[in-house]
């Protein structure tokens, strides 16, 4: 058995705050901060024995006051989660601790002037609940620490190199002591970028001298692994009568869970990124509450603030009698627009996604009674970061592409397709694999919609090195200059046509005589990231008797840059949309007055099922990213940004009820309908 006392405590060793938080989150020390916070771990020879042993542990708990929402946590005399938490980025610094970990702020222009220039100003406050990533496969890890101290860890994660780094840090081990093999991953959506079980399994295996397996039950996944933040967001927007947005004032508080680290920073950067607004102010707070520490969830932080901003945009359009897409087009960020978060946008495709939706037959299709249509747009940065790939030409002329990015949605197929394109051979001759931490160079997590861009770039560059090598070998064979050899359609050709072409298989078979095995590695920190935009269109029907919302039709247009594997691109778009629909209509963490999670299972935490949904129609917009050899942007995340508002805007159109609190569950909407009918 192990407890917090068995782990090094970075709080006592002058560790960085984030390291202290992560260490304390995976195993409580003196203070248990949320239901599900681990206090001990037990290994036994059978599952039953381990469960009985864990149940036999007696913990002396002293009940403490707690806070569950940002309002409670930010109240004057709120109970404090951490006695040492001083709000960062406030000038002058506060003299005492609070539950506010940090403040973020952006501003431009003159807010008063901007609102004075507006003909219509609307301000509303929105709330969203914590929602879980909801991957179907729970967390699991197997650790085997040998007598030499060398450890082998198998786990399902979005980045086994990162898991190695994090687990080693918590244990105060050198990362190289641990070899991590990536298991096939059963969904992550951001939630499997951080450690939970891995250091526990490693330490238990060290103690036991045996391999140890730890698996979360579904209730533990909900209680102990990261959801994303519940939020409170106030948005005030001003528009001129001609439809130009003049000013925006955004205030946000994001629940971090028990330790700092909500995605409020990304929220602050994304919230206004779709538009060119001359005067704005954005302020956000990272607030600790007695709930599980949040983890990344698909475009972390962006969907909630987009829900708020895009809802008010919708009201402004109606208020000045302008088509909501026209209003968005009028203010849309384009190449050269100074993004609200700082840099000038490179070539981007927001306008193209808006036009795709405007010109889609869905936009003009007739609606029936109690039905309504909503539109919303969204932005996500996308990421580059570190990737490595190794490419081998096997002796039969087929190829192996070795990457270290766990495949969460078909990236091995995309890697194979890009290698095939480079090499001019059929993709069936290429096998792409995800290798362990000792077999391929370092890779950052599969996250930030970065793998097709960054790991893809490493694959492309490695293939180009191989082509150069193959041309040199052909030149050697033909006794000519390398310049006289081209690589065309999977074979080396002499520019004068004086030699019979040498295929990949020919060159592979002779490799021993031309310089040895044919292999190349490329590692990079990818630049040239292409931002992503999506515009979505949703039709709903509202049942005025029950408040139930039916999604009738949904169309999503997203700028993919270039779609490497178009049907997987569509799959990313559709998956993001449906997670957003669940967030809008059903999903929420429900905590009781005792601070316990009341719905830690898929029966009561209701993610969308097949019968809830129509087909999700996709328009893959391709505005190539000029900074990537194939024009790739990354497609994984932005699809979840617009649907919350698209659904809410459709509900407003169908029912006349502007819903500002998510989820828009039947009781909540029915209540709004009843208040509407009573004229309140």
């Amino acid at each position, binding site marked *: 058995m192990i407890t917090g006392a068995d782990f090094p405590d970075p709080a006592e060793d002058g560790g960085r705050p984030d390291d202290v938080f992560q260490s304390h989150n995976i195993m409580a020390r003196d203070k248990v901060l949320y239901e599900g916070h681990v206090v001990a771990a037990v290994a036994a020879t059978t599952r*039953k024995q381990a469960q009985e042993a864990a149940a036999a542990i007696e913990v002396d708990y002293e009940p403490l006051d707690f806070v569950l929402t940002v309002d409670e946590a930010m109240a004057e005399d709120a109970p404090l989660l951490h006695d040492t938490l001083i709000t960062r980025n406030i000038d002058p610094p506060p003299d005492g601790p609070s539950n506010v970990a940090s403040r973020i702020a952006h501003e431009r222009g003159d807010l008063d002037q901007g609102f004075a220039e507006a003909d219509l100003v609307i301000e509303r406050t929105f709330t969203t609940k914590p929602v879980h*990533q*909801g*991957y*179907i*496969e*729970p967390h699991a890890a197997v650790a085997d620490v040998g007598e030499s101290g060398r450890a082998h860890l198998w786990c399902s994660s979005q980045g086994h190199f990162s898991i190695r780094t994090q687990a080693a840090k918590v244990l105060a081990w050198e990362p190289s002591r641990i070899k991590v093999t990536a298991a*096939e*991953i*059963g*969904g*992550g*959506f951001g939630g499997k970028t951080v450690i939970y079980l891995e250091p526990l399994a490693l330490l238990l295996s060290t103690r036991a001298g045996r391999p140890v397996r730890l698996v979360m*039950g*579904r209730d533990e996944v909900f209680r102990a692994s990261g959801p994303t933040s519940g939020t409170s967001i106030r948005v005030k927007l001003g528009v001129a009568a001609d439809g130009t947005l003049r000013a925006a004032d955004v205030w946000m508080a994001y629940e971090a869970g028990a330790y700092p680290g909500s995605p409020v920073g990304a929220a602050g950067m994304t919230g206004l990124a779709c538009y060119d607004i001359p005067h704005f102010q954005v302020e956000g707070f990272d607030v600790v509450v007695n709930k599980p520490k949040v983890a990344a969830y698909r475009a972390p932080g962006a969907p909630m603030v987009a829900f708020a901003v895009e809802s008010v945009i919708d009201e402004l359009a109606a208020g000045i009698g302008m088509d909501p897409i026209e209003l968005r087009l009028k203010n849309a960020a384009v190449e050269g627009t100074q993004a609200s978060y700082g840099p000038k946008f490179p070539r981007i495709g927001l306008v193209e996604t808006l036009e795709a939706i405007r010109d889609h037959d869905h936009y003009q299709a007739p609606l029936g009674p109690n039905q309504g249509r909503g539109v919303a747009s969204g932005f996500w940065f996308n990421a580059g970061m570190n990737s490595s790939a190794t490419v081998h030409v096997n002796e039969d002329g087929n190829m192996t592409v070795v990457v270290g990015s766990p495949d*969460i*949605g*078909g990236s091995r197929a995309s890697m194979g397709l890009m290698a095939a394109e480079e090499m001019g051979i059929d993709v069936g001759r290429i096998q792409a694999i995800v290798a362990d931490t000792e077999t391929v160079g370092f890779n950052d997590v599969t996250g930030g919609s970065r793998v097709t861009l960054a790991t893809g770039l490493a694959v492309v560059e490695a293939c180009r090195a191989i082509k150069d090598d193959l041309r040199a070998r052909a030149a050697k064979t033909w006794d000519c200059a390398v310049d006289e050899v081209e690589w065309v359609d999977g074979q080396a050709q002499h520019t004068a046509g004086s030699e019979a072409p040498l295929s990949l298989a020919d060159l592979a078979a002779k490799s021993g005589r031309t310089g040895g095995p044919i292999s190349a590695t490329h590692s990079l920190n990818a630049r040239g990231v292409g931002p992503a935009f999506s515009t979505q269109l949703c039709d709903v029907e509202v049942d005025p008797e029950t408040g139930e919302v039916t999604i009738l039709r949904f169309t999503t247009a997203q700028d993919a840059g270039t779609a490497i*594997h178009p*049907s*997987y691109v*569509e*799959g*990313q778009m*559709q*998956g*993001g*949309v*449906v*997670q957003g629909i669940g967030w809008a209509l059903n999903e929420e963490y429900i905590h009781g007055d005792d601070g316990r999670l009341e719905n830690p*299972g*898929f*029966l009561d935490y209701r*993610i*969308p*099922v*097949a*019968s809830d*949904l129509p*087909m*999700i129609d996709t328009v893959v917009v391709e505005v190539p990213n000029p900074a990537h050899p194939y024009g790739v942007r990354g497609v994984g995340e932005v699809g979840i940004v617009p649907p919350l508002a698209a659904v809410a805007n459709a509900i407003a159109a169908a029912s006349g009820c502007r819903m500002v609190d998510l989820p828009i569950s039947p009781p909540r909407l029915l209540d709004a309908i009843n208040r509407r009918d009573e004229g309140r």
Partner: protein
Amino acid sequence: MARTHVSANINGEEVEFLCDQDASLLNALRDDVGLTGVKEGCGTGDCGACSILLDDRVTCSCLVFAPEVDGATVVTVEGLASGGHLHPLQQCFLEGAALQCGVCTPGFLVAAKALLDRNPDPTETEVRYALAGNLCRCTGYDKIIRSVLDAAEAMRAGAAEATEEGAHP
């Protein structure tokens, strides 16, 4: 604890295995029989990732004690392909990109097979309701539903061809 002896027809073969008396069928299939196509997503019958056919009915194997299947017929995803050929559902899922992470896929395939066995020409709505007990968090279901409809069509065409061949030998 004494292990319990169970005999069952699994994927067309008579199989005998030993399991703990209180083992779920899910765990026995994975740990004692070696059929890891069944996945545990919840352990409470809410997600469908462990779906099997138990005497032709779609069943969550996490909700059945392994000794209960003594004498019964069990089909798991491993029983769908035959003679080196994928089941049309599997082929259509592959071609239709109906999976991303794949952890729900075995359950979907089994539940879809049960549907098509009793209704070879389902509507989209019928497919959606037949698969409503299987959760997928990656795909938004679109490509799954399309792939099941495609497989149904392929199987009907295959059946019609077989009938025609039978009529005109």
